[in-house]
């Protein structure tokens, strides 16, 4: 159960510093799997508090164009689930807590018990599955938690109170989806996010991290004022896409900038 605590500790450490946790996302296998160690090192050095590693899926129906493209290219260059599990084993000791983000079918196919065990053994702390709703996912949750892996619940602007109540006993953190929609950069942060975070806070005793659509340091700053964590995926991957040969430098610079966004909070509410 130590890994679950690692997520808890990461959020607490950020909170103690009066800021939100910064959670960057990269797709394993983009631009190639051999670049993952360098990318994780860059994110770590730039101040990531938690890192999300995407396992690419052929049909990523919760993703916008940028992450679709990253997944398509990762699969086209031969990225395999077993290779990713093998590779993160060497990365987790030197990185902040890491969680996987993938779709239900690769996990189902691998076998949820075996997947959870292998991910836990590789030092991973949690698992996010955007096409597995909480009500459907109870068997997966039990299997994940039996291995010590947190299955991260998601909440959306459309979520009912009864859903919020059902995730009270979840582990790790709550993933707040900022918009009705798919991943991708948005011009502005939806004004409803704050309400969503507050609704979750009232019932769930876990940190709330907000993702989907956060495009830059300014928006990260805005979200960090009321959320416990800020998740940035598409904007980071797009930055890498602009110059894949310098993926690590680009990722470092961008995450550093985001970090300054979540740091300058003045006083935290």
């Amino acid at each position, binding site marked *: 159960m130590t890994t679950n605590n690692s997520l808890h500790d990461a959020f607490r450490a950020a909170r103690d510093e009066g800021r939100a946790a910064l959670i960057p996302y990269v797709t394993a296998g983009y631009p190639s799997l051999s670049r993952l160690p360098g990318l994780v090192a860059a994110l770590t050095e730039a101040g990531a508090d938690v890192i999300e590693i995407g396992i690419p*899926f*052929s*049909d*990523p*129906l*919760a993703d*916008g164009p940028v992450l*679709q493209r990253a997944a*398509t290219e990762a*699969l086209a260059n031969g990225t*395999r*689930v077993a290779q990713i599990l093998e590779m993160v084993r060497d990365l987790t000791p030197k990185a902040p807590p890491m969680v996987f983000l993938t779709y*239900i*079918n*690769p*996990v*189902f*196919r*691998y076998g949820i018990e075996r997947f959870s065990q292998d991910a836990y053994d590789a030092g991973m702390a949690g698992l996010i599955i*955007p*096409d*597995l*709703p*909480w*009500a*459907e996912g109870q068997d997966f949750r039990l299997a994940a938690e039996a291995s010590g892996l947190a299955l991260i*619940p*998601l*909440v*959306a*602007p*459309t*979520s*009912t109170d009864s*859903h919020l109540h059902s995730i009270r006993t979840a582990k790790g953190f709550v993933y707040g*989806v900022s*918009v*009705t*929609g*798919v991943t991708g950069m948005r011009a502005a942060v939806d004004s409803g996010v704050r309400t969503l975070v507050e609704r979750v806070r009232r019932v769930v005793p876990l940190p709330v991290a907000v993702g989907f659509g956060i495009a830059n340091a300014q928006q990260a700053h805005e979200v960090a004022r009321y959320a416990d964590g800020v998740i940035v995926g598409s904007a980071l991957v797009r930055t890498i896409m602009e110059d894949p040969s310098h993926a690590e430098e680009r990722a470092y610079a961008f995450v550093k900038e985001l970090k300054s966004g979540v740091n300058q909070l003045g006083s935290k509410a």
Partner: protein
Amino acid sequence: MLTTRVPDRYGRFGPFGGRYIPETLMPAVEELTQAYHQVRRDPEFQRELNALLKDYVGRPTPLRRADRMSQALGFDVFLKREDLNHTGAHKINNTIGQVLLARRMGKTRIIAETGAGQHGVATATAAALFGLKAEIYMGAEDVKRQALNVYRMKLLGAEVHPVESGTQTLKDATNEAIRDWVTNVRTTFYVIGSVVGPHPYPMMVRDFQSVIGREARSQILKLTGELPTHIVACVGGGSNSMGIFYPFREDPVALVGVEAAGEGLETGRHAASIQVAERGILHGSLSYLLQDEDGQIKPAHSISAGLDYPGVGPEHAYLHYTGRATYVAVTDRQALAAFHQLSQWEGIIPALESAHAVAWVIEAADQLRRDRARVVINLSGRGDKDVDQVFHMEQGGAQ
């Protein structure tokens, strides 16, 4: 015969089915489930639906003995003529029902995915009938293959969005429709075209398509005084087959679903997910799925765009699993031969999808003759949409 009612209230057909969708959509499918349960019992809704099926769609569709085919094969073959529906296929039975429901629910915007374009046309038609706006997602590859259907949808006032991602076919169009749905969930009704997707869709589409089997059952009893021995239908997502199977499920009748073996099962280039029978989760439900060892979805292949889908409805997986239905597959070549054969035997040009069902009956003729079979084939659609494709294929040799 022992039967339990499926699906249960979680939308499960034994181990299959369920709801595997983003959390954002859960309240919407819950709302849809409630609304559907209401209209199912609402005589006013049923009256309106039945009136439209009769006077707009043209139901009941005939069921008639195919005399020359029966003579040639040496046993009785009957055709259930879904090709005679308005818009040329069974798809409209479902779209009228769903669009009627959308209107009840106060949804103003209709979206749909389409492969061959038949479901897109049927959705655009139902939307036009009620003055609603329809937006149709279609793989860029299919937009090319089925240009005429694209134009038909536009004529009907729908907007067609070509989908450039992935394999640019039906599965990618479905991904894109789900992305739209997740984004516009508050105003938008997603009209799914087959017995696939998250609960309640597989059940709801089955119910709307069951009119085929209800009619066929009373027609064949009236015509011959007895039940058929076999019901044969092609299986893409599985809606025309489920529609005709369902009312016969407790009868001593063999239910035969015909999948697309494409270039041959051994080549890997096919769409026969039940022949492979590997469980997987895609587009909202757990069923059989064409996939690799990592659970990545494999592209399907079929001469017929309407069967070109790597999954199948969860209730078919269940019927295979329990053994209540039998699933077989025929190749592109066999389907094409049947396309010609039925045209010449009966003066009916079948859709390439439906030609798969005809082809299996021809392939299995020796056994069926020995069994003195009385076979009902569900002729799910007409072949007009395919004439151009077949013409070019046969002119040009390759395609």
